[in-house]
């Protein structure tokens, strides 16, 4: 698959940048600590380091976003297939898992449901009046997911209409990506056809 090869090549470049960048930054850190730079040098170094940090952070956010979208697609398609086995791909095995998330009743707009939910957890509304204590949404979602797994009903105050599944994908790596890149380069040089796709297929199947 062409796009997978391109992404793997990006991974290779990223890894090289990471290693050289990390080395350079570590060197600067040690030098700075020993007082080798002038104030002007330090300002310049801070400026450039910040830009590196921004770029790395932007790329991380973009990658996280793509991971999230791809995970959702995999999990939803997985749900709509009759078989529930892990997805075995050439580089990794993916195991979709799902939890139930809920929309909590609003304290002011839906006080009856809110009170019913708090009663279920044994919480006195009076203890919530000073706003120091609030329902912890992730923890309630965890509890609701466990109830769903056990076949138990939703806690009072939570409408089935206000529940929705959330998905995640556990990835178990089958191939070392660095080794795969080395194998690809080797296959590409040996094949002499100039066809990257072919070389990649050879490397994956090795």
């Amino acid at each position, binding site marked *: 698959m062409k796009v997978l090869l391109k992404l793997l090549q990006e991974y290779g470049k990223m890894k090289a940048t990471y290693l050289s960048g990390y080395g350079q930054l570590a060197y600067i850190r040690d030098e700075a600590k020993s007082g080798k730079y002038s104030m002007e040098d330090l300002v310049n170094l801070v400026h450039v380091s910040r830009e590196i940090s921004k770029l790395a952070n932007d790329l991380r956010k973009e990658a996280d976003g793509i991971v999230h*979208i791809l995970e959702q*697609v995999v999990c939803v398609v997985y749900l709509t297939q009759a078989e529930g086995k892990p997805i075995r791909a050439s580089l990794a095995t993916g195991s979709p898992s799902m939890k139930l998330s809920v929309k909590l009743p609003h304290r002011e707009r839906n006080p009856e449901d809110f009170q019913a939910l708090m009663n279920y957890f044994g919480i006195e509304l009076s203890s919530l009046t000073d706003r120091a204590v609030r329902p912890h949404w992730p923890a309630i979602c965890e509890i609701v997911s466990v109830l769903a797994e*056990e076949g*138990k009903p939703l806690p009072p105050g939570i409408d089935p209409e206000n529940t929705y599944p959330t998905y995640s994908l556990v990835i178990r790596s089958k191939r070392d990506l660095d080794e795969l890149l080395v194998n690809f380069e080797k296959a590409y040089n040996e094949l002499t056809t100039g066809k990257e796709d072919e070389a990649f297929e050879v490397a994956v199947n090795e």
Partner: protein
Amino acid sequence: MAKKDHSQGITKVTPNLSVPDFMIEETVTGLEVLKEFVIPPFIKVIQKSASDELLQTFSPGDVILSPANALIAEMPRNEKGRPIEGAKGVFQVVPLFFYPEWITWNPIQLKGTEPSIVYRTIDPNDPVVAKSRSAKLRSEQHPTQPEYTIRHVEHLNFIVLLHNHELGSEPAVLSFSRGEWRSGTKFAALIRMRKAPIYGCVFEANVSIRHNPKGDWYGCDMANPSEGSAWVGQEGFDELKDLHEQFAALHKEQKIQAQYDIVDEDDEAVTKPSGEF
């Protein structure tokens, strides 16, 4: 609107099914085409736009078994016949088998002149699958009448048995698509979360009104039962397993044919894509 009398729709009769003596020796013929497909009854939620014939007997939000038109669950209503706010029509089911089907639907405007279903497939590699999952590709120009659009739709079908219900336990199709597609994925997720055989689980359907800017319609949310056990009893479990295997085999042979509701609702109101990737 006053509360309707549903008694006519759900009158149960016990027909005499024994073959008359003079036919006993005859070869059974004329059923070859019928054997090709299993067409289970369809669990239908009555919408405001249902046919007059249905609306004379049922009210929007009621759930019936089609084509027998037997009432499964009634939307709770006040003495004036209006739905009680926040109330839900509730019934329980045991899912036996799940399968998706992808269908290309003709527009409602061509009803009577062309078949409602242009194309149907259960092959997950069919090009229609990708089209049905993409907001941009889902609607296409009709091949011969460009003023109309055809629509590719993913239907999430659950073959279910009604649980502890007076209508008995004939397998029926509970299907989720378009505006209800997300509810279908939620049901599939709930089944997966149980980590148990699909036919061993009991779920509760909660029918309630949905709103979006284009209109409103009645939809079905699946949840664990609010009353009773979430699991089937040991007695009858083997029969459920057999039924599951029978439907799995029929699906493999492409012999299940769900009888869908013809899309006759206000298309805009119920098709707001809520399940985009």
